[in-house]
């Protein structure tokens, strides 16, 4: 099996500060791969690098064998990578379903002419996009909010909405940045099920998460970061028994 996401010797410095330093790992297709570590360990920076929001200062990132260091986020989306954010990025000036339809953007190829004169091609596209978006909202569990303004939705519902949007592009790999942050126990349990379903249906999941119970329960592999470097890498049971990790996390 070839690696879907491959990171080699990755470096990112802001000024003189190395937020990510010499990080290497690879994620196989179909895995749930989690990145954990204390606050400020460079987890979100790592995700920003992988999804093209930041440009690495060193090292290499590959998606499906292609080097993606210099690609823009939208180009990575075209190659099947989608994500959510720790600080949710929802378009509050739109309705819920429009946010998810936005996620379908790459599948909709109507020309400007077709759009301006609202020709049948556009209407067909929009109808299918709306259907798909509604299905996805049902799938993530916010099917009751279709035409609700995003600004009027609860935090938990928005979290799920963002996942639906990321799924709308039919991605190969989806990156979830702290999806459980701010959720209660019931919501977290639902989230765990959702992530499992996404993975079971063949989408690779990369996860940054603080909720250890959740992470240990669903991950196939874990990467532990500390001060921007790799502290450990392995299966949940390997990580649980790794002395460095125990020292960093528990011994402190």
């Amino acid at each position, binding site marked *: 099996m070839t690696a879907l996401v491959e990171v080699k010797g990755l470096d990112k410095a*802001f000024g003189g500060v190395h937020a990510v330093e010499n990080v290497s790992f690879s994620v196989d297709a179909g895995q749930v791969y989690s990145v954990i570590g204390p606050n400020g360990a460079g987890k979100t920076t790592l995700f920003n690098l992988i999804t093209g*929001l930041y440009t690495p200062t060193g090292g290499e990132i590959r998606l499906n064998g292609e080097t993606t260091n210099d690609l823009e986020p939208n180009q990575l989306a075209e190659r099947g990578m989608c994500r959510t*954010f720790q*600080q949710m*990025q929802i378009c509050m000036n739109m309705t819920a379903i429009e946010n998810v339809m936005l996620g379908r953007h790459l599948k909709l190829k109507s020309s400007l002419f077709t759009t301006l004169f609202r020709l049948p091609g556009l209407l067909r596209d929009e109808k299918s996009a709306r259907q798909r978006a509604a299905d996805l909202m049902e799938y993530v569990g916010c099917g009751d909010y279709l035409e609700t303004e995003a600004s009027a939705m609860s935090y938990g519902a928005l979290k799920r909405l963002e996942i639906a949007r990321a799924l709308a592009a039919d991605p190969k790999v989806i990156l979830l940045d702290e999806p459980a942050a701010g959720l209660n126990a019931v919501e977290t349990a639902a989230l765990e099920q959702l992530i499992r379903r996404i993975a079971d249906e063949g989408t690779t999941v990369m996860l940054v998460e603080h909720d250890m119970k959740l992470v240990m329960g669903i991950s196939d592999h874990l990467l532990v970061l500390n001060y921007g470097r790799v502290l450990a890498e392995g299966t949940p049971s390997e990580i649980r028994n790794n002395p460095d990790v125990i020292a960093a996390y528990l011994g402190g």
Partner: protein
Amino acid sequence: MFSEFLQFLFTGVTIGATYALIALGFTLIYNASHVINFAQGEFLMIGGMATVSFMALGLPMPLAITLAVLLSGLMGVLLQRFAIAPAKKADVVTLIIITIGASIFIRGLAQLLWGKQYHVVPNFSSDEPIRILGAVMNTQSLWVLGIGTVVVVALVLFFTRTMIGKAILATSMNKQASRLVGIKTQFVLMLAFLVSALLGGIAGVVVAPITFTSYDIGIMLGLKGFVAAAIGGLGSGVGAVVGGLCLGIVEAMAAGYLSSDYKDAVAFSMILLVLFFMPRGLFGAKVVERV
């Protein structure tokens, strides 16, 4: 040949120093509140026009000037209190429109008070120009440069040596944190508008004997100050000074060697050119997007 160049340079540096003062005013308000104040030019207009009026009342020039500058400062405080502060949560564009509304309002008041005609402010000292290497320099230019330098030095001292200055800087960097350490941010914002308006008033008075003054000179001067601030990089004090001087010199050279019809076009092309290659101006801070 050389004397001609020197002549243009003098003109450029003089007007550039004025632009620098306006740009500093922009920068101050921008730093403290992220508002682009389109009424900045009106502070200059008030400075010049009020000096004319106070002198017409028979006040000696230094007193007239002081009062005019203070009046300008008062205008800044009023602007912050009654137009900017109530609209805290407004969009950037909305704030811009508010300052444009304020600028039209102030201009309207000025027109009521002083009419539409041009007014003349006498030179601060001798009318006899100085000759240097074949070029002629108005003594008022020396006043502009001298006072400009004094103001810049005073500002540097204000921001590095006084508690109030440091408080303004701190607020511009992080509003929330400043509030936590006990800085009254609304008060600081008002101070920023006050200092900025005082700067504008001073600039308006010193340049008035060279350019004449009327109720509507504020628009173009204000815009030039904005251009200068953007060339230098919004928010940078050094940038404002350098941007102002650059703009003044380029404009004077363009007027002298190319065509005075196109001197403004050159100024605006310059800002485009700078922004094409340096999207944050010459000295603008690079900002890392956080997500």
